[in-house]
């Protein structure tokens, strides 16, 4: 600022007043004094309390699994936005009259806003330090090494600072827009709700509203912290935990043999193909068969079973008189009588009852038959002979399906009833757990949370961009839009 004025010798001399850069230091000094006298320092213990509460909630799962990491990142983002927003929401609107007076006296709006920007950056830096320290104190286990520094806590601290600072500048803009502190505090909840709802991580947004998340600090904050916390390489435990809680739940259902066979014919289904490839049975020797038979109680019972009963003359005569095959034989004439008449007459004769009870064949058990056939002897002699072959579920299913007789049994219903726990035990709990966590994590993979330096820097730049945009808008609003009313 300069003007011309005549000096004692009558020559024009240039009078300069403080420029923008110099004025920044005046206001920065003023704000630092305010930090002590105007209770601005209270934001530091407040941020410690907020960080402590959040730390106690997220400490056990942050950096452990996907859900805990997302929740922890969201919580840290919220803390940073909360701190930032409430730092500066009233700073401009509460001294609107003072700004007007000082602007009248030569204050540059840009110097005033820049001084606030520098002061708030300092405040955010201190709050970030407190927040990171307190979260660590409450038990959040930050992994050892970051992408940019040797301590991940410092890397994440940079992100928290940038989120906090961007939010701070946003509320500085709101403060420049609002005429009174009451108006500013009325607008603030809407700003916070907008930030939280459209963070794009915690709440599933409908497609039409996703565009809003591109304009929220929380979105970039969440992305950068999730990236740094290596979200994509953490296991997703919700699916497995849910299954675990369902152990005692009964499951089951009825289905037909036809449905099972049809399912097993779906060769293009990868899951079915895996089942079809499973092997059934194995090669075994006759010696193993004999061992099994000798040790089997059911085989012992089978050997006791009678396979032939004793036949009597009465049985033979009834067979002769009633069987269809003996019809021709029965009609043979012997003199005036047929053989049938002759036999009927004979069986009716008195005293023939005892004759008819006379046995004509011996009684035999399975064991006696096997002994006669020397089966066990044969098994012992040929104990090294291999029997059987390897087949797959698919081959067996195809064979059953190809059998014309199977058609009769296709509608036969099969009912299965069991518990989730038993199924898990059957399939192998550890195997299922590993599989579910891996598959769920693959499904939850988010390219926005990629743990790469490029991704992190891009999000940092976005946050800085937001902060600068808000500062610029606040300056424009105070400098031009609000000019006549100020």
């Amino acid at each position, binding site marked *: *600022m*300069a*003007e011309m004025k005549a000096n004692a010798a009558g020559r024009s001399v240039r*009078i*300069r*007043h*403080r*420029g923008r850069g*110099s*004025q920044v230091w*005046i206001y920065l*000094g*003023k704000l630092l*004094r*305010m930090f002590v*006298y*105007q209770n601005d320092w209270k934001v530091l213990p407040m941020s410690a309390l907020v960080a402590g509460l959040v730390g106690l909630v997220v400490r056990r799962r942050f950096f452990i699994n996907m859900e805990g990491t997302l929740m922890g990142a969201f919580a840290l983002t919220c803390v940073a936005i909360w701190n930032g927003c409430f730092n500066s929401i009233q700073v401009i609107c509460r*001294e609107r*009259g*003072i700004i*007007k*007076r*000082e*602007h*009248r*006296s*030569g*204050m540059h709006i840009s110097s005033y806003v820049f001084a606030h920007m520098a002061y708030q950056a300092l405040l955010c830096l201190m709050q970030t330090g407190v927040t990171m320290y307190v979260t660590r104190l409450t038990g959040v286990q930050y992994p050892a090494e970051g992408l940019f520094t040797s301590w991940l806590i410092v890397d994440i601290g940079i992100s928290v600072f940038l989120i906090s600072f961007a939010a701070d500048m946003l509320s500085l803009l709101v403060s420049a827009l609002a005429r009174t502190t009451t108006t500013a505090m009325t607008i603030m909840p809407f700003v916070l709700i907008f930030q939280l709802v459209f963070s794009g991580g915690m709440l599933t947004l*409908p*497609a*039409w*509203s996703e565009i809003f998340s591109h304009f929220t600090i929380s979105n970039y904050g969440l992305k950068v912290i999730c990236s740094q916390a290596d979200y994509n390489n953490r296991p997703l435990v919700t699916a497995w935990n849910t299954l675990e809680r369902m152990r005692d739940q009964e499951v089951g259902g009825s289905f037909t043999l036809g449905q099972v066979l049809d399912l097993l014919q779906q060769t293009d289904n990868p899951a079915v193909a895996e089942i079809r490839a499973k092997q059934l049975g194995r090669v075994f020797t006759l010696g193993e068969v004999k061992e099994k038979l000798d040790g089997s109680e059911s085989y012992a019972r089978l050997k006791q079973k009678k396979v032939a009963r004793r036949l009597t003359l009465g049985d033979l005569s009834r067979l002769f008189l009633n069987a269809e095959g003996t019809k021709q034989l029965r009609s043979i004439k012997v003199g005036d009588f047929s053989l049938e008449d002759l036999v009927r007459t004979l069986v009716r004769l008195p005293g023939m009852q005892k004759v008819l009870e006379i046995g004509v064949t011996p009684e035999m058990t399975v064991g006696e038959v096997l002994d006669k056939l020397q089966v066990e002897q044969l098994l012992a002699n040929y104990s090294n002979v291999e029997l059987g072959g390897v087949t797959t579920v698919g081959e067996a299913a195809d064979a059953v399906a190809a059998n014309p007789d199977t058609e009769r049994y296709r509608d036969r219903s099969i009912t299965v009833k069991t518990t989730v726990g038993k199924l898990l035990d059957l399939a192998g709990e550890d195997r299922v757990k590993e599989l579910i966590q891996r598959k769920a994590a693959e499904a939850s993979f988010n390219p926005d949370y990629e743990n790469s330096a490029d991704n992190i820097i891009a999000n940092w730049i976005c946050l800085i961009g937001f902060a600068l945009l808000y500062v610029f808008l606040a300056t424009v609003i105070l400098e031009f839009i609000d000019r*006549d009313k100020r």
Partner: protein
Amino acid sequence: MFKKSGVDPRWALVPCARSYMLARCAEREPEGRVTSVAEFFVVIIRVLTSTEVMAYVLHALKDYSGLSTLMLFLDVVGVAVSIVYVVYWFRVITGLIEVYGVRRRWMVLWIFAEYVPALIWGWSDKYQPAWKVEDIREALSRVATSGSVADTGDGLTVNLKERTVTEFFQKKILLRDIHMNIPMGHMVLLLGGSGAGKTTFLNAVNGYEKADAQVLLNSRNLYKQYKKMQYEIGFVPQQELMRGKDSVKATLMDAARLRMPFDVPASERKQRVEDVMEIFGLKPLEGTLVDKLSGGQKKRVSIAMEFISNPSLFILDEPDSGLDGVMARELMNQLRKIADTGKIVIVITHTPDRVIDLFDDVIVLAKDSARTGRLAFYGSIEKARAFFGKQSMEEIVKGINSVAEGGEGRADEFIARYAEVQHG
């Protein structure tokens, strides 16, 4: 009703504008703005969400998956805006009931069937409004003045044609035809009733809120060279606009850094702060926080902040408000001393008579019948007494104030007379 209130009846046929005009009839113009804007949005939302428009949109769009959500959102906005409309419409009705002087039970009818009371009040001679919307052009022509003053090369020359603001598409004239020349070294009293535009005039004079005017300070155009000349003007606002949690000395040091030339050595700047604290009796309070000071002490700090740059034009908006007689007198004495150093000091005060002997001149601003701030007089105290035929300043104010404000309502008369005296 519009005809009775002096509004063109054709406005009754225009949706949204109708409610605004009705609010003007009810002497509730600000509420009318909100009502008409809210009504406009409600109508737009209703049209957008109407079945016919929806059918057309569904037909035109290939992908309308998000349309139902958008409609729901519009409905929510519609509900919010409707609430605003109802509240402000209620205020307008209350105003109408007051203007027509009828019982409050009419409100029920206005809420549920507005056309019925509107027709009854409009047709029946029994119902007459106590307030009419004034034709601003007619009023302006009734109290028209013109002219200007020539720059004398010394002091403050003001030739203000008008100071206007535009609110809700309407131009409002806040000040009009104010011409004067104040010599250096004069202490001037700025007098006027409430709403006469005293603060607006001072803001226009110091160049912060520019008017259609030419303001010359020692022949230099303040408006054109505002950035250079703003340090030559000290404006002390009515309220103590200072940061309460800063000490007196720190406040004055910052004021010195901001207002004094950059090349002034730090030691000289500190000395100036010490001198100003001495002049205004603030030395014993230098380490005290501004919040801890009494009203009078705060006033002194506030004045000292502006005085620190040694301005040529010193403007004070009610510096004695909240001060007792003794303190006010003491403060005015200090201002007199400042004026005696060759500076112009312009002061607004509501208790002028106790310190009138300290002033050289008086500016009287009055609100004319078009509600515009006008110059009713500028000259010495003695001439003012003769011009208005009053002995005290308070009587002068009473003479120019409207009857409704307890005055004599002679503003238009004095404005016209002074214009005649000033410009012939």
